[in-house]
């Protein structure tokens, strides 16, 4: 499946790009993260502390064990600091 993967704040800075298209067979967010971490050290560094990473699937907050079936857009970002 093809996913649009977005990165925000320091995840965007560490990985070095705001979005990319990824072809994957990952079934869950956690599997996608594991796959990304094996790509290059910058991904490994960005996802080293998953307690500091949040994920949204098609713009809705989700858990790391959430399935990716039917999802088009995955976004990774740190805890939000609005207001």
């Amino acid at each position, binding site marked *: 499946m093809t996913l649009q993967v977005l990165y925000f704040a320091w995840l965007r800075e560490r990985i070095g790009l705001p979005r990319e298209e990824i072809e994957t067979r990952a079934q869950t967010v956690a599997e996608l993260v594991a796959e990304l971490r094996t790509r290059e050290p910058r991904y490994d560094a960005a996802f080293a502390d998953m307690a500091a990473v949040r994920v949204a699937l098609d713009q809705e907050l989700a858990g790391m064990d959430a399935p990716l079936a039917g999802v088009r857009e995955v976004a990774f970002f740190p805890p*939000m600091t609005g207001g």
Partner: protein
Amino acid sequence: MSVRVQREAFDYGRECAGFERAAAASGAGAVVTFCGIVRDLPGGGLRHMEIEHYPGMTERALGAIEAEARQRWALDAALIVHRYGSLAPGETIMMVATAAPHRADAFDAAAFLMDYLKSRAPFWKKETGPEGAAWVAARTEDEAALERWSDAAARRGDGPGGA
């Protein structure tokens, strides 16, 4: 009910006055307004604050939070305005306004909107000061602030979206 996400500065006083007039015309008896301001660093010297957001999700998340507030309280009107981009110390970052028949609903709904948008709307702040630039870390107090609304959510069987 209205949500605005914008780069441009806005006039808080004018927004409040307009909101109050519209609320009065619709028969509301109470209006509560709040604004957040770019605070200087503890030691001073903040040059600017950059606010990043997730276009699309931001509007959805704020709309969902506002819809939740309307379900919980008898609101005549609500307004959320939140800026992104580069802001200078002292600038207004965001505001919420609520209008209700009585003050308790207006106060509670405004506090709820603030608590939720702090940690459930996709904004991130980066401060640039004398030591360079650093992302603002989320505060555990902000996450804990959501818990005070969870009793009511549990009674009704659900809460606003979010993991």
